[in-house]
């Protein structure tokens, strides 16, 4: 059973519908016990880092998420809050991945970074990248980006390098929206569900 953490964000149902397409059993929940018992945990997120972290604190889920040992996938903002901190509202994150999330410095390019961009495979051995090829396109929409460090498994480019898939130990994240990235996104979700 996959637990999708219900952070009351707008894209929760889109994520749930995509999990349905992988044909994996799931539930949407804020119950710490259900989350601890789940085989996999997904943390969706759109909006503001501060609002998202506030909600996790209110629900008492910050220590719960940090202590998880099963595969965890943060999506978009759900990935950004895995890091130590974010420039967005100068917000402390979950501190699971090292570094600070910063505004994209795409000089002269429109922000948000919105649309279908290509993937570079920084760590082709990543289990999330099974069946994914160089220059496959996925759908991004964001204005902040994670740091380019050892956690990066795949990246994209928009004025600068943008971490696209990240991970360390049992924690993973996608900056793009796999639930809105066609067959490529579905493959990545299936890879996660198969961990």
């Amino acid at each position, binding site marked *: 059973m996959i637990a999708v953490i219900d952070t009351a964000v*707008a894209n929760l149902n889109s994520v749930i519908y995509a999990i349905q397409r992988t044909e994996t059993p799931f539930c949407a929940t804020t119950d710490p016990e259900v989350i601890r018992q789940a085989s996999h945990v997904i943390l969706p997120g759109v*909006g503001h880092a501060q609002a998202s972290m506030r909600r996790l604190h209110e629900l008492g889920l910050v220590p719960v998420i940090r202590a998880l040992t099963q595969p965890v996938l943060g999506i978009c903002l759900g990935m950004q809050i895995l890091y130590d901190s974010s420039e967005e509202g100068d917000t402390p994150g979950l501190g699971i991945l090292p570094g600070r999330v910063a505004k994209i410095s795409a000089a002269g390019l*429109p922000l948000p970074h919105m649309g279908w*961009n290509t993937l570079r495979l920084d760590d082709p051995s990543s289990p999330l990248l099974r069946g994914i090829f160089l220059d496959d396109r996925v759908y991004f929409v964001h204005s902040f980006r994670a740091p380019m460090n050892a956690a990066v498994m795949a990246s994209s480019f928009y004025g600068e390098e943008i971490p696209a898939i990240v991970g360390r130990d049992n924690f993973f994240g996608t900056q793009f929206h796999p639930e809105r990235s066609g067959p490529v996104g579905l493959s990545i979700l299936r890879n996660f569900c198969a961990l």
Partner: protein
Amino acid sequence: MLAKRIIPCLDVRDGRVVKGVKFRDHVDLGGILELAQRYRDAGADELVFYDITASAEKRTVDTSWIEATAQVLDIPFCVAGGIRSVDDARRILHAGADKVSINSPAIEHPDLIDQLAAEFGIQCVVIGIDTLVHDGDYYIWKYTGSESTAQNAGRRTLDWVREVQDRGAGEIVLNCMAADGTKQGYDIEQLNAVRAICRVPLVASGGAGKMEDFYTAFSTARVDAALAAGIFHRGEVQISDLKHYLDSKGVIVRL
């Protein structure tokens, strides 16, 4: 590299996709799910659904078709028409739409843009702008859903473009009314003027008649996406042909 987006726009009325000439004489084009999947399979990068019932009759958008669409669609989609409040937007976004597009209600209550951006993030907030040249300047129009209600809103388009960005628009769809329906090409001059001051993604709308029109919008006006309805619905341009054509001209697209 980020791809330029091709966005078919589908007018929705009473659960069906329709097409009319200047909002009259609607022809039924098919079911929403059927057309959404057909355009997805044809290579559309994103879809816009314009709920003309909700907009014209001041009704709230029925969300049942949005949920059904979100279940089958694995590309992003935006819902426009009839969104007048944060609650309206919440119902649509929670049903599974990725973005909401606001036009006349944003002109009446510009604060709505700030509220939507604060509540959902700017990536959800698209501002649609209907614009027309008048006395040598560009002006925004409101209530353009029918000829009897359409009126000049009395504001310069470029001022409005600046304001909506400051308030939290995450994307701007510029619908150039004089070009709309003419099939004579996008209004490149006006798109250029807006592009020069637009820091968020800009979508060209109105006037696409042939594949070259898309190329000009991307290469000359440097828009991020191009929206069209009629030429796709009538089958005059196939999205896959269009993308291969653009690719051959050096425009980055998702093939």
